[in-house]
């Protein structure tokens, strides 16, 4: 069961994030849900690179050669988080402009642009 847990947690985050996006009545809430979906990728990446009884891939107290987890996926997550934060800022800026123009943040109250 413990071997399945990481993948199920990631799937759960993806699922509740998508549910939030589908039922959202406010763009700010929707952007939060999008970030929840994105955090599923963090869980997946970190768990793919995990190894039992291994240290961090930073050989400061322990010498190189001791077992360490995968640094490649950790580097991916690191850049992912920073990019995710700025993309969230971009989406929030879109929400601000939307509220200025239409006076609402409810996705269901809006018609597609022509």
């Amino acid at each position, binding site marked *: 069961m*413990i*071997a*399945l*847990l*990481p*993948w*199920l947690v990631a*799937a759960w985050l*993806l*699922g509740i994030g*998508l*549910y939030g996006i*589908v*039922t959202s009545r406010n763009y700010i809430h929707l952007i939060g849900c999008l970030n929840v979906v994105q955090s599923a990728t963090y869980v997946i990446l970190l*768990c793919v*690179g*995990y*190894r*039992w009884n291994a240290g*961090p*891939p*930073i*050989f*400061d107290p322990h010498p*190189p*050669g001791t077992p*360490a*987890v*995968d*640094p*490649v*996926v*950790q*580097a991916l997550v*690191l*850049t992912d*988080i*920073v*990019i995710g*934060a*700025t*993309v969230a*800022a*971009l989406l*929030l*800026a*879109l929400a*601000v*402009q939307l509220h200025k123009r239409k006076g609402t943040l409810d996705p*269901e109250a809006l018609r597609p642009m022509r």
Partner: protein
Amino acid sequence: MNRIARLTLFAVSMLVLTAATIVVATHMPTFGSHPLPYGDAVNSLVPPARHISNMVSAVNFDVRGLDTLGEEFMLVCAVTGTVVLLRGTRGEQLTSRPAGMHGRLNAPRSDAQVLTGRLLGPLILLFGLYVVVHATVTPGGGFQGGVIIGSGLLLLYLCEEYRTWRWFMRSRWLNACEGGGALVFVLAGLAPMCQGAHFLQNVMPLGEFRDLLSGGLMQIVNAGVACAVLGGFALVFLEFLEETREPRDEA
């Protein structure tokens, strides 16, 4: 599409997704005990080859440096988009002495608030710099440190007040920081080519293992990333705070 149709579609797709997840999850390699060929290659090859102990930084700034360059430009694009959207018709004009906003009190901060800010501010700045310069030795690097310094600047708004924040934050400097960081990254990539080496090839002296200045070219790339992230986050904060003010409120 109405609400019920959308929820039905969502429920059906979730059923499919759940079934697919269970199949995939039971066929994944065993958690925590499967081979990690790329990670092991980095962990065993990079410390002797680059004299640095932080493998995550090594992957970001050297092994996958070209990828990080792409991510750097994604960051610049996202920040530029945010700034353009928020500035709108206001343009680039920013007075350094904003007037108060109609109907909104410019609440003075209490002494305790100011004191806390002035005590914490330098410490957060120092911690951010510490994280930036320790990129190759301990868990640190330009991305994390840049975010710490950028967010620490918000203390100016919280603990001083809006005028001080605006007096201190000059958007021109931040633009230079943001764009200059990305430029430093590109130049660090192109410079080795002048010597006949490859793009981003680490041709600088590598230094001692576990030394603050180890890693050669990675130090320059790291500094560029720190500048770009710091400038980007501070610009986003500046523009979001500016958004609460209309152009006519500025004297």
